[in-house]
Structures are given as structure tokens and as C-alpha cells.
């Protein structure tokens, strides 16, 4: 699928074919994409535990089901639990930054050297940053979000549906027995959609000019309608929700899966 179509087609899928398993090669492809995401100081905070729902012991699945998450966990055959490994920065101590220097991704042209990393970046910036848990957590989680989003887009590129949810962090830590310095983040629910891929249409968003500015705050970035038309042709901007028939689709899904209306 073309990149713009992937972006245009992505929307949170909440009804999955519960018994149609996701092929292992597609799962790997999703994880490969996450690994290649842009990452500050090349630290790679994101960790993931892939769970095939039907292979998870029933008592563990039941532990994860709460009154706010029972349905999505039931419907999605594949769960990818994402974590932030907060300990990584003090374990690698700038080594992965020096790898970037070695391969020419960071060069003296931009001020980079091994000595700068050893003498300044790690001891004076990164190590102290990890002492301020709140600020460090915000930065690391933002980084993880970019990687997790790469994973999510890749799921759509592979013809799957996906939805990012926030599980109960305490339950997730307990069920998967992760190290103490792993912070539970999100679960990416993945599967083949039971709803149409349009899922009711592209979701409403605030007006473009309300979000983006040019040069200074208060000067909206002017949206060129010709560009909008091109993006419609290329599949990035699609028919907005609600599409005709969405309510009927929800009724049918509710009937099929035994859900309240």
C-alpha cells in the first residue's frame, strides 16, 4: 500500500474477527517497523511483549480483563503490550550515540565526537535527566509513542486493523513479570477487522488552521485546497465519518458479538 493510503486508511479498529489469527510474519513486520523508528540519542526505550490471546493462560487473560477492557481483549486475537525501559540510558551510557558517530550518522560537521558523548552528553545531560523521573518519563514515553505509532501504521499496511489502548499498568506488570524499570504504556490490539475497513469513515479532526501556524503563533498555516484535492486522489484524505450505513453496521456487529446498544 502506498504510504499516503496507509495514513489515510488508519483509524482505530475496535471490532476484530476474533478467531482469525494474525500471521507471525506480519507480527514480525510490525515489530521491525517499531525498531526502525526515529529515536532520541538512539536509546531505544520501547519494549514489547507479543501475546496471542488464545495462547495466554486463561487466568492471566482474566486478570487483564477489567470492566473497561473486557471486550477489546476478547475480540483482538493479537495483543502487543508496549513498555518503556527506563533503565536503558544508564546501562548503555551513551554507547549507542557513539555508534551513530562511528557509522557517520552523527558527524563532526554537526559538532559530534566520541569525546563529546563521553565527557558531556552522558555525564552532564543524560545521566542527570534520569534523576528527574517525571521529566525523564515524559521524554522517554514521547519517544516510545513514535515507535509504537510506526508499528500501528505497519499493521494497516499489512492489511490488518489495530487500535491502541491503555491497559491497567499494575495488572500488566503483574501478569507479564517485567523488570521493575519497565513502565507499562499501551497495548496495540491487532487483528483482521470485523467491521468494514472504512469503519464509518475518517474521524473528525479540528480545522487545519486551528492546529498549525506559520512563522509565529496566531498566523494559521494556510491550507491549499489544491493540495487537499491531490491528497484525496492519493487516498490520504478520505471520506469523513459518519458514512452512510454506519449505525446499521454497528447494530449488526452488536448482534453478532452479543454487545449492548
Amino acid at each position, binding site marked *: 500500500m502506498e504510504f499516503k493510503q496507509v495514513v489515510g486508511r488508519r483509524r482505530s479498529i475496535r471490532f476484530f474477527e476474533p478467531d482469525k489469527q494474525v500471521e507471525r510474519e506480519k507480527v514480525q513486520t510490525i515489530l521491525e517497523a517499531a525498531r526502525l523508528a526515529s529515536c532520541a540519542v538512539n536509546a531505544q526505550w520501547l519494549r514489547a511483549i507479543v501475546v496471542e490471546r488464545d495462547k495466554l493462560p486463561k487466568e492471566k487473560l482474566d486478570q487483564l480483563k477489567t470492566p473497561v477492557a473486557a*471486550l477489546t481483549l476478547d475480540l483482538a486475537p493479537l495483543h502487543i503490550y508496549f513498555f518503556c525501559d527506563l533503565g536503558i540510558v544508564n546501562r548503555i551510557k551513551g554507547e549507542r550515540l557513539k555508534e551513530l558517530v562511528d557509522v557517520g550518522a552523527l558527524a563532526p560537521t554537526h559538532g559530534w565526537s566520541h569525546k563529546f558523548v563521553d565527557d558531556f552528553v552522558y555525564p552532564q545531560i543524560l545521566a542527570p535527566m534520569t534523576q528527574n523521573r517525571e521529566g525523564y518519563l515524559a521524554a522517554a514515553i514521547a519517544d516510545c509513542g513514535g515507535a509504537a505509532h510506526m508499528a500501528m501504521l505497519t499493521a494497516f499496511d499489512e492489511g490488518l486493523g489495530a487500535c491502541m489502548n491503555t491497559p491497567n499498568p499494575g495488572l500488566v506488570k503483574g501478569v507479564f513479570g517485567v523488570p521493575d524499570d519497565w513502565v507499562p504504556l499501551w497495548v496495540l490490539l491487532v487483528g483482521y477487522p470485523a467491521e468494514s475497513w472504512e469503519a464509518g469513515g475518517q474521524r473528525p479532526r479540528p480545522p487545519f488552521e486551528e492546529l498549525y501556524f506559520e512563522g509565529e503563533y496566531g498566523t494559521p498555516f494556510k491550507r491549499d485546497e489544491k493540495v487537499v484535492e491531490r491528497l484525496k486522489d492519493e487516498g490520504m484524505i478520505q471520506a469523513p465519518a459518519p458514512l452512510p450505513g454506519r449505525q446499521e453496521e454497528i447494530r449488526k456487529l452488536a448482534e453478532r458479538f452479543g*454487545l449492548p446498544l
Partner: protein
Amino acid sequence: MQTWLRGLREQWGEEPDDWEQRLRALAGFCAFAEKDPDTVIKECVRESEAGMRIRLKGRRFYNDKIAEWQASLPGDRPAQGRAGNAVRSFLIHNGIFLQSGMQT
């Protein structure tokens, strides 16, 4: 119950054609739980400085109670699930976010 009815109308744009069945289900559940509908909602929320909050223990209690009630009903599982879902709908349209899994 007015909030429930209003929520159904707003969601679906029409009068629910199974309203009487829904009311019967809710009445059956309330008798089982020995609570009236307003009390069920009240026990699922609490006031806080920031406004109304969902009371997690209350929601879990009623989530489990609905499951217990529907399992006690005659009929097959889908029929039991439909009755339970009527009560879940009552909670949902009163603002109590609830997911209880597939009732099939």
C-alpha cells in the same frame, strides 16, 4: 431511566423498538440486586472536586452482578446475554463506561 431513553434516542435517532423489553430486563435485574435503578447509578459514581467520577468498586460490583443475574435466567446464552446487555445499556447511557465482553 429518562437519561437512558434520551441516550438511546440520541444514539440511534429513533425510538427504541425494544423499549418494553429493556424495561422488563432492568426491572428483573433490580429485583435480583434489590436496588432501584437510581440507586444502581448512584452506587457507580461519586462526587469529587473535579466533578462526577466513576466509582470503580461500584462499577465492578454491578458488572459482576449483571453477569450473575443473566446466568440465573432461563433460556440459552444469547438470550441471557441480551437481557444482561439491556442492563449494561442502562449503565452505559447513564455515563458508566462498561465493557463486559462478548455475550454469545
